[in-house]
Structures are given as C-alpha cells and as structure tokens.
C-alpha cells in the first residue's frame, strides 16, 4: 500500500531540522541520497571520468531495455540492414532518426534523475504482526524541470536470519532462492504525479514485519521508465536503516490475583506517576503529553515545562524476566514469552500499575514515562535466551509484587505473582 502526502518546499523541512537540536552537522542520520543530494562530495571535473561515464554506467546504475525498447532496437537493426542492402538514403535518414531518439531518451532520463534526492525514514513503532509505514521523502532540487514517473524499490528483512532448516532432500535452485527470499518482504511504490521543480513529496510503504528483533529496511533502487518507456533506468541506492521490531501483541488471560502487600490507599509516594498530586515541574521532553504543559510556568521561564504528578498509592508490579536457555528451549515458546511480557507490560503501564522490569538479573528499568516503556520493548525486541541469568539484586530483590514467568507445557506461558499464577498465554 502506498500513499502520498505533500510537504512544502524543502527549505522549510530543513528549517525544522535546523531548530531541532544541537546535533553536529556531519553526523545527521537522515542524510539525503541521490543525484541531487547536497551532501555529496563534489569531485574535481575530469574529462576522463566524464567520457568513461558515457561508456560505462556508474556503480549501481542499471539500464535495461523494456519490450518496446527491444522492439525499437530490432526495428533499428532491420532498417539499418535494409538501408545497407539497398543503399537507400531514406532508410539511412530513418535509421539516424531512430538512433537520435534513443539518444534523446537517455538524455531525458538523465535529466529526470538530475537534482532529485531522497531519504528513508521508517516511521512509528515497528511491531511484529502490525502494519507500519516506511516513509520516503523525495525532493526535486532542479530549478524549473519537473521529474516524472519515479518508483522506489524497498525491501525489509530481519537483520539476523534464523539458521536455515536442514533440507530433507536436495533442493532445486528455485527452492533455494525461495528459501532465501522467505524472510524478505519487497515492495515497489510509485510516485504517480510529477514532482514539481523545487518540490517535495512523501511516499509511504505499508509493511507488516513478521519477526521480532532487528530488521533492516532498505531502499534498493530508484527507477523510472521516463521518457518514452524504451529504457528502464535503475539507480541503486543501498540506503539502509536498521529498526527494532517489538514483539507482537498476544491474547492472555489475567486471573487477577492480588498481591499480599497492598498498600494503604491515598498514600503518597515520591515517585512520578499518574496520580492527582503535583509532584514537580520539569522540562518538556519529546513524547510528553501536551495536556501536561504548565503554560504559566512555561511563559515565565521561557521554555516548556511539564507538570509531574505523584504516582497512585497502589502497588505497582515489577516484571522479572529470566531467560535461561536451559528452560526456554523452544524458539516459538520463547517468542510467545517476549510477546506476552511486552503485552502485559503495556497493559500494566496503561493502567498505571507497572513499576518496571528487570531482565536476566539486570537493573530495574523503571517505567515512568512512555519512553521508558518503549525502551523496555526495545530490550524485549533484542532479548535472547542466555546461559546463566544473573541473580536478582538491589532494592527490588526482595520486593513484592514481582511477576515472574515460566513455561507451561510445550506452548504455553504462565505468569506468577509471589508464587501464585496470575496470567497465562
């Protein structure tokens, strides 16, 4: 699925970038790529390089003939043969015109790509089994020539592919290639309207990742059939971005066992949360809800300030997740575990009952803000079985309301609070 939205001239998007933060100039992660990218190194002009580029295409540039192009070539060969056979200058004129049209096609194709640049931006959170969008921003930096008929070839695949299954019998080449393509999702999105000079466009590619973990999104090539459909020109980009795919959400059953140590209601805690009592004011950080902005304080101080409330005085849960390889031997069950933990963490956070999570004896990752939850999900995305999980330590070592997880049978997972089963998936 591809949708397109327009943005204004590129200068304004660069303005937004300019006011974002004090990031060093040369370490901008969202560089522009393509013939019109300003960050490209300008080489010293050399005739040798120019002449060679006319004969041999640059690296990753592919030009192939389409069916009409093949037909045109065949027609040119036929007319050329007839011209030499009959020494008819009329046929020579026709042949010259056909060859000139082919040259014009190449020249216009070069003009079409000139001044265009693009960048890849996987947007939003990636979650296994959920459709997400990959955004491509395209700009035409030419002064007065538009660009037409561009397409973008995208692909996504897990960064670390699972080991291939041992084949029961010898596989044919087609099967081998199919096996290699099994985890790769490819797509092509088209820029259907022309790209105005000094204009920009945004294209979205909907993709549904299938596996948790690190995934690579790649913009493989930008192509076009412009102008006459004789030649298919592809500019390989090798533009990659690594994204983290969170575990999928799963259905689970919450039996609702309450812990033994419920605190007194109304008791204030010194921890930030979603309660009603104002705890403090702090500087705005990206991700904070706009409803929490303290406008008077912001106007006084000249910067955005956020109200921070104390947490409710009920006990929050701590999720303790240990993944010894000896216990979690089945990969599907392990994936279910990660999905279960992630889903449970989100649900608990949404209801304000999640204090934090600890993974394999590591420190407690407190979840006060949405960003903390996202960090937890990032950890879950990367989580793998370990040989020896560390022992629980620190203040929460003897804490209460700790949810632990254990396998149930060959496929199930159970969650226990203080030794009592409270949920299962």
């Amino acid at each position, binding site marked *: 699925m591809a949708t397109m939205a327009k*943005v204004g001239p590129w200068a304004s998007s660069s*303005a937004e970038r*300019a006011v974002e933060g004090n990031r060093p100039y040369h370490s901008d992660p969202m560089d522009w790529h393509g013939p019109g990218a300003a960050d490209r190194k300008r080489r010293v002009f050399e005739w040798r390089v120019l002449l060679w580029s006319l004969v041999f295409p640059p690296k990753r540039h592919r030009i192939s003939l389409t069916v009409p192009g093949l037909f045109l070539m065949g027609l040119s060969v036929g007319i050329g043969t007839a011209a030499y056979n009959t*020494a008819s200058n*009329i046929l020579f004129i*026709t*042949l010259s015109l056909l060859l000139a049209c082919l040259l014009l096609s190449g020249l216009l194709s070069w003009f079409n790509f000139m001044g265009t640049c693009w960048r890849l931006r996987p947007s939003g959170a990636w979650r296994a089994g959920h459709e997400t969008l990959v955004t491509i921003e395209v700009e035409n930096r030419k002064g007065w020539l538009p660009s*037409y*008929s561009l397409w973008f070839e995208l692909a996504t695949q897990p960064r670390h592919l699972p080991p291939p299954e041992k084949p029961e019998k010898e596989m044919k080449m087609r099967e081998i290639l199919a096996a290699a393509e099994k985890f790769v999702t490819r797509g092509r999105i088209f820029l259907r309207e*022309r790209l105005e000079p000094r204009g920009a466009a945004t294209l979205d590619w909907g993709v549904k990742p299938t596996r948790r973990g690190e995934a690579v999104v790649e913009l493989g090539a930008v192509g076009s059939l412009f102008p006459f459909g004789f030649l298919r020109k592809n500019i390989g980009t090798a533009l990659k971005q690594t994204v983290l795919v969170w575990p999928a959400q799963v259905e689970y059953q919450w039996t609702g066992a309450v812990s033994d140590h419920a605190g007194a209601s109304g008791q204030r805690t010194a921890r930030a949360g979603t309660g009603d009592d104002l705890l403090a004011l702090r500087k705005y950080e990206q991700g904070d809800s706009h409803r929490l902005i303290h406008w008077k304080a912001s106007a006084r101080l000249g910067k955005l300030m956020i109200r921070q409330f104390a947490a409710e005085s009920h006990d929050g849960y701590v999720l303790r997740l240990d993944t010894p390889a000896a216990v979690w031997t089945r990969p599907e069950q392990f994936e279910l575990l990660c999905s279960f933990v992630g889903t449970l963490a989100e649900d608990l956070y949404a209801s304000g009952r999640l204090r934090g999570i600890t993974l394999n004896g590591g420190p407690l990752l407190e979840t006060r803000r949405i960003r903390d939850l996202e960090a937890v999900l990032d950890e879950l995305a990367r989580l793998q079985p370990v040989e020896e999980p560390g022992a629980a330590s620190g203040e929460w070592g003897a804490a209460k309301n700790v949810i632990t997880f254990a396998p149930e049978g060959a496929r199930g997972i159970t969650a226990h609070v203080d030794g009592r089963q409270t949920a299962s998936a």
Partner: protein
Amino acid sequence: MSTAAKPRQLNLDELRRLKWLLGGAMALVSLWTVFFLDVEALGLVAVTGSVILAALVWPQLPGRVPALVWKLSVPAIIVAMAADFYFSPDTLPVLIRLAILLVFYRTVSYRRKREDLQLIVLSMFLVVVAGVLTSALGFAFLLLLFTACGLGFLFVITLIDASETEGSRTPEAETAWTRLDWRRFFARLRGVADWRLLAFAATLFTAVVAMSGLLFLIIPRFELASGFFLDRYITRKSRTGFTDTVKFGDVSELIRDESVAMRVDLSDTTGLRESPYWRLVVLDEYTPEGFKVSAGLKGELIRGQRVTQQLRGRQIGREVNAVGGTWTFYIEPGVSRFLPLPGSYSTLRMREVSPLQFSPGHRVVALRTEPMTMTAFQLDEVELTPLLTDARFPQLLKAARETPPAGTGQYRYDPGVNLRGPSGEANEAVLNRVVAEITGGAEMPVEEFTRRAIIWLQSRHAYALSARLPAGLGKDDIVRWLDSNEPGFCEYFAASLTVLARAAGHPARVVAGFHGGVLNGFENYYMVRNSDAHAWAEVYDGKTAWVRADPTPGAVNTPAEIAAQAARQQQDSSWSARVDSLRVLWYRRIVNFDSRAQVQMLDSVKTFTTDSGVALRARFDEFSKRLKDWLQQPWDAARAGRTAGLLAGVVALGWLLARLGQWGWLRWRLWRRPQSFDPVRQKAGRWLSRMRQSTQDRLPGAEDGEVIHDLRRLRYGRRETWPEPRGVFRRAKQARRSARSR
C-alpha cells in the same frame, strides 16, 4: 496534506484524451504520405481519413459501435486483403492498402498500451515505405511531423502508465475521458503548459533533428547489394509520349502539364549557349497511328543490357567542345525509363549498379523497368551537337539493301525501317508530289532538302496544340495533315519531315524528348517541365551522322538563331522556383548522398579544418612577431608609464564589467525569485560549506556546534528567529581560524 499550491498537471482522463489526439494526428500524418505514392488507394485514404477525423473530434463515437462490429472487423480486413491480393497484380499496393486499413482500425478503437505501440509501428511503416518509394521532399517534412507526434505520443503513454493505479475501474470510469469537453480540455492544456518546458522540448527536438543529421552524415556507406528491392513488387507506367510507342497527340498532352519532369545540375553553367535538346527515345518505325521503337531497336537494347554503374559514351581521347562540366540529372518518377541525353558524353554514371539497356549507335540508354523513385545519374564531358555519329549505319544499310533481313529475325535491327513510310498508292502519290514540290525535281544534298522541307512545312502549317485532321479516305493521318493547311503540333511537324525525307530516299526518324528548360536562379540548375516535351526529326546525312532537324515553327536551327536564343535565356526566380530549389537540395544533399559524397564531405571538412588551422597559426605567428618587435623597441619612462596606465585601465575596466555583470545577475535573480534570494542566507550557506570542510577530519568542539547551529538558523530558519548575522559570521571566522591552527 501540505499547504503548498496544487501542481498544475493533467489528470489521468486528460492524459488519455491527449493520447487520443496525438494518436489520431500521427495516423493522419501517415495517411497523408500515401498521397505521394502512385497507388490506387486515394479513395480509401479519403474515407479512412474522414472517419479518423470524426473520431478525433467526437471520441465517444467508437464507443457507440456495437461490439459485434469490432469483433468482425479483423476477419473483414483479412478477407479484404485476400481478395485484394487475388485481384491485384502487384504486391506492394496491396500491402499499403492493408496498412491503411490496420491504421484506421487501430486509430478509431479504444486502445491499451500494446495497441498504442502497434499504431506507431503501422504508421511508421506507411511513412517509411512512402519515403523509400518516392524520395520526395515532402517526405522529409512528414517524417519530422511524424517523429514529433510519435515522441509526444510515447511520452504521454509513459505518463499514463505511471499515473494509472492498480485495481479495476468501472466501464464508465474507463471511458470518462471521451466525455471531456474540448474547450475545457484545451483550457487545461493551456493552464498546464509551461513556456520553459515547451521551449526546452522544442530545443530538444531541434537537437534530435541535428543529431540525426550528423548521424546520417557519419554513418559509413558501402553498398552490399545492387538494386532497390521494393520495385520488384510494384509496376509503374511512364507518361505517354516517352514510351516505346508514341501516338500522335501523346507528346502534346504532356505540353499542358507544368510540373517539373527533371532537374539538371550543371557544375559549370558558363559556355552554355543553347537550349539543349534532351533526347529520350528514338522512334524509327512508322505506323499509321504514329511512330514507335522498332522491334529491331528493342532487340538491340535488350542485347546491349548489362548490370553496371558506368557506361562509356565516346572514345577516349577524342577532342570535343564539352560544356557544362558534370551534368547531374534528377528525373522524377513516372517520366520514362529512357534516360535523357543532351548530346554526346564521355561517361554516364548511375547512383548505384543498375541494369541498363544501351544502344550506342542510336545513343539511347534505358533502364530495364520504369523507376518508382527519382532517378539520378551523371554525364561527363557533354558536347551539345546536332550531329549524332553512327559509323555503323552505312554498312548496315548497304548490307540490308543487298540482303534483306529474314522475317524470322524480327528482333534483329533492320536499318531499312528508317526508309519505310506510309504505304499505299494514295499516300505515295501525295508524298511524291510534295517531294517534287520541295526539290523542284532536282537532286540536292540532304541538308538542302531538309532545309527546304522545313520551310515548306512552316509555310503551310502553323503551330497549335490541337490539330484537326482533314477528312480523306485511303490516306494516313499524317499524309492528310501534310496535304492540308491545318495547324499542328510538334509531333505532326516531326513526323511529316520524317515521312517526306523517307519518301525522298533519305533515312530519317522521329525523336521524342524535351527541349529547353529554365535556369533556376537560386541553385543554378535547369528545370525542365513536362510542358517542355517536344518531338523532332533526325535525318541521315548520307555519310556517318544523323542530323537533328526541328521543323516545328519557333525552333532554332542555325547558329545565329541559337546564339540569339541563348541571349534571351531567362532565369526563373519566382517563389515556385525557390521551393523547387529546396527539392534539388534535398536530392543533392540527402537522396544522392553516397559513399563518394561522404568521402568528399570528409575531405572538405578536413581541408577546411587544416586551412583554418594554418590561417590561425599564421595570424598568431604574425601577432607574436609584432608583439616581440614592439617589446624590443627602446623603453623610456614615458612609454613605460603609458603602457602601465593602459594595462591598469584594461584591468579596471574588466573588473568593472565583471562587477556590473554580477550586480545585474543578482538583480535579475532577486526580481525573478525574491523569496529565495537573500544575501544573508547565501552567506550563511557559504560559511556552512566552509565549516563542513574544516570540521570534516576532526571532532567538532562545542563552539563549532553552536556556530554551526546559528549558521543553519540563518540559512534555513525564519527571519524572526535569526541571531545577529554579523556576530555569527565573525564567530564563524574565528572558529575556522582556530580550527586551522589546531
């Protein structure tokens, strides 16, 4: 969604409408080329062209045709083609009619991409075949028009391809483009058109034409095979008057036609003192309907046939008074298969190896078949003379008198045919009476007889384009006319002189061709029109030569008359002559461009380049020498001061001009796009580039980051958020300086 202005571009339906328009235009251009061809298809072209035009204007019309009709169209075309093949003697006209039908079918039906490409191929077939068969100048114009339409058509197809979304559309949506209002459509086209893009497209098209011209010149030429292959699939007839049989009136019909029959390029027009007689065909056998090429002469031509590119006309080394330099003939198709020869020549050279029929005694050269395209050939060392030397003729005539040829050898040349005229008592009686009247019963040489016969004819008959034959039984037409006072045309005069000479015992024959022509004032070539068609006689002088005798009133026969006529030679500088000169340029530079011309062109380019280089070098050497002499002159303070002042003035003027140009450029840019041009932003951009270069190889410090941040704010940010520019630039300078020192 962005708040940017919506781009001006055509939507999918408008693109489809534009594609329909371009496809129809392309088809009409290809049908137009059929008019150049002499095939029986003009009615079909008229009908199909009208229907295509109607479908162009009302694109919804094809949608109203029942589906059954579309399904039956292709079988109907196949049946029509089969019937055409069966009934037509030639293959190529059938193929052309088939192509017309297919173009028509594809143009008026709603097409998808594959069918669009079929339309292009079919249209191109018509255009190329017409061009190859006719080599007409109009083909060049139509080819360019077709190329422009074709490229636009392909461009729109590519845009439609890119604009079409996946998923099926309803039939109404598919044909929505046919219901667009033309006025609104053209208004949209006008709104979308950008003059810069149109100018760019026009420039590119011009570049394509120039590039194709350059490719045409440099593509190496070498002939792989002889002969033009398509002429085997179509027959063509020559105009009457220049065929093997010329009936009385055939030549006169041509005189009413003002179209150009041939063009003759002369490399040297000086020395040309007379209007040439362009001999095409020799008609030596008399029939009551007219004169014709005898079977014996035909047989001689066939026996003399050879496949060659060059013929020798005269013996090498013979002294002649050659005029005109090299004569290059461009004969329009349909004139004749006989080649016009103005006189004796040393060499006849065709454009390519061709089968030629040749009779040296009669000085007749003919192609084997009627040519479909323009025929070109060259003659060298042409001598314009009224005499045609035939050394064999006396022996042949003597042998024929002594031993009359047997009836079975009908294709053997019989010189006695030049003495046979109207038979029968009545005819002979009239002829003998007239001969007696001319000679007065005395013996006289051939020249004298010819002169008196011409006077006799001109005194009794005036020239007119129409002749009324008097009644009379038992006599041939020519004898009846001879014996009357009716006016007549050139054929009657020539035929009359011939039969009179034969009756007097002098071999004579009729020759048909052209006489005269007009010099084109633009390109210096002879334009000979069909109206210059003429017939005259040749009388054997009793020794070794045939003497031209033109009895038509107004013809010039004496040297004095010839000189007077040459003085009156006009040049045609009218508009039609100007247009006609383009045709000669087309023939000269394009159609006749062969490997020899290519080598000549390369030689001339090489010579020009070499000469230019030599001239440039000579000028440079001279300049260097003068400068050296000037420098070596004694120097004093005044001279040094003057020189320094001059140099300073030149430098200052150059600097001033550069600054002025820069100022003008900046002002123009500010006028053109004021919103994008800001000197502060420009300077900030320049500083950012410098900072990027200086921080490239090392980690940036905190100060650098702050300066870069401020520079980016100046470059990209809103004016209200700018820090003080001067301070920023000063800090950037300091940061860069300190970066360099580190």
